[in-house]
């Protein structure tokens, strides 16, 4: 497509404002530096896109080029002047231009997704579902679900996360992954045990504190919290035992962590369940081999493993007799 000559201008980077709808607040130095080195050598080859509003230019596409131009103290940069988009168009443009190309972090995506939902609802008179949101923004349904988890947190946790993301990487303790994993686990806990719902904010605060102090050592530990909550249904663990264990984890006055509580409460049963599934598979396989008369085809290693299993099974039955 030919560029419209009338719309291509050379503008001072100082006349340009960042797009108010671009939710991306964190830029990595490495990615900016490689672009900057290229611009320092050969200039800006692809014009940035801007729109004009009240005598000011606002970025549509090219925030990294614009930042590099400012850092390099360039006088003018090429810019394509486009029509001012509506708020929804602008937001969707931000997603479609940037999110896919630059791998936005979840906070960035989530921070504007709520507004997209509101504008979409206003325009179409109904709430968009995950599929519609996915089509409009170019995000996967999984990404949208993760964003929803962040969005559903009270606003002060958004601020907490943003403050954390502004810190140098080495000083960041709470990540988006932390909040996503924690929220997913807490959602499961609340669904199974609604009695924790009124205290949810205190629980979040405790878990954040325990994570910061290293009592909870990994974000993936939250998956064990969810497994504890579902163990009443899936494993038939006593409900009071699980509730008691969760209270321990959620209490502020102890150093109880998720990993140890999981181990002492449900880990054995989960391992047993896993072993049973493998045993069922093995039993079915052996039955099939016998039925189909393929015994000679079994190799020695497999037969040796079975013999070992047989010895252990004998010991187990004798001890249980």
């Amino acid at each position, binding site marked *: 497509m030919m560029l419209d000559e009338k719309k291509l201008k050379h503008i001072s980077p100082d006349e340009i404002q960042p797009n108010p709808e671009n939710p991306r*607040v964190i830029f990595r*130095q490495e990615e900016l530096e490689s672009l900057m080195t290229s611009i320092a050598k050969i200039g800006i080859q692809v014009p940035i896109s801007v729109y004009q509003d009240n005598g000011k230019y606002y970025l549509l596409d090219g925030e990294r080029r614009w930042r590099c131009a400012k850092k*390099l103290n360039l006088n003018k940069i090429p810019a394509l002047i486009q029509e001012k988009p509506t708020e929804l168009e602008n937001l969707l443009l931000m997603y479609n231009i940037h999110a896919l190309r630059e791998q936005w972090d979840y906070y960035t995506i989530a921070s504007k997704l709520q507004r997209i939902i509101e504008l979409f609802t206003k325009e179409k008179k109904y709430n968009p579902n995950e599929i519609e949101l996915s089509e409009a923004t170019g995000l996967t349904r999984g990404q949208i679900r993760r964003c929803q988890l962040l969005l559903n947190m009270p606003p002060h946790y958004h601020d907490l996360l943003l403050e954390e993301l502004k*810190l*140098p990487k*080495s000083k960041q303790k709470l990540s988006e992954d932390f909040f996503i994993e924690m929220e997913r686990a807490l959602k499961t806990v609340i669904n199974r045990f609604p009695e924790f719902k009124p205290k949810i904010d205190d629980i979040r605060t405790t878990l954040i504190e325990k994570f910061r102090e290293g009592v909870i050592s990994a974000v993936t530990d939250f998956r064990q919290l969810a497994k504890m909550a579902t163990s009443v249904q899936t494993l038939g663990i006593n409900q009071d035992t699980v509730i008691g264990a969760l209270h321990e984890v959620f209490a502020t006055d102890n150093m109880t962590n998720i990993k140890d509580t999981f181990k002492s409460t449900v880990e054995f049963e989960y391992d047993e369940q896993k072993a049973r599934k493998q045993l069922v598979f093995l039993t079915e396989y052996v039955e099939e081999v016998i039925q189909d008369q393929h015994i000679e085809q079994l190799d020695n290693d497999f037969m040796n493993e079975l013999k070992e299993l047989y010895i252990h099974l004998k010991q187990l039955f004798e001890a249980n007799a």
Partner: protein
Amino acid sequence: MSNVFASGEEYQIEIAISYFKQIYSLSEADIHRNEAIHKDIPWRPSFYFKQKYSIMAFEISERPFPAIFYTAYASIMTVHQPIIVYSICTDENIKANEVKDLQRHGFGLFTINPDSTVSKFLDGIPLIQHIPEHEFLDECNDLPPKIKGRLREVYEIYKTQPQSGLSEQTALVEEIVNNVTKQMVKKAWLPETALKVTLANKLRQHILPCPNCSSATSSIAGLISFVADYRNMIHHSPKSQKQLYDKIHSCQHGFREGIKRLKLFNADMKQIGITLKAT
């Protein structure tokens, strides 16, 4: 408006600025954030402020040597302003090779420590005073090893304190000329009284008119002029901003000039059987 270029930049800027405000008694109005220092320098530092004798410019970076320094270096060297450039990074991101690179270019480094305090890790100097190491080594070629060694010590001082470095260099010249005078007295080319006069007079009243030195007059005259220009430069305070810039710029010129004059003097003295010596 902020132009964030490194992760954690805003956090580090606030810590660093509050540190410099305290150290140099600056107000917010003294701090220029993301502004150009000069139209010909392709770099807007994270912030800079003016001092009596220089401009101190800072770049917040995720590592000690930000790429923008490579881009801006040549332009800063040519702009007629005493600009001291510092990188600021967190303490845990220090990398020895990058620190060495900073030093080689005349840049300095501050670190933000885990307890959010600020420390100076490496002194920076006004870049117009900076002499890159490889250029210094090239310029020292052909000098006797001992003199080269002494110049190296002086260069190490110059790298962080250019005016003291230049002063040390003139002291070295004096030591060399004293030794040359001794050798000439021993050869009975000069009277004993030559040993008791000032450096300038040794050169002007004794060595220059000495008939044995007739083939070395231009290098002796060069050394006289170097001594006259730089011997007491450190003690003279500049009276205007222009004088200040000239003085700062002179440091680099003087240091290079000193080496050049010594080389010519060495070559001429060698011709007449005198060896340049330093302790």
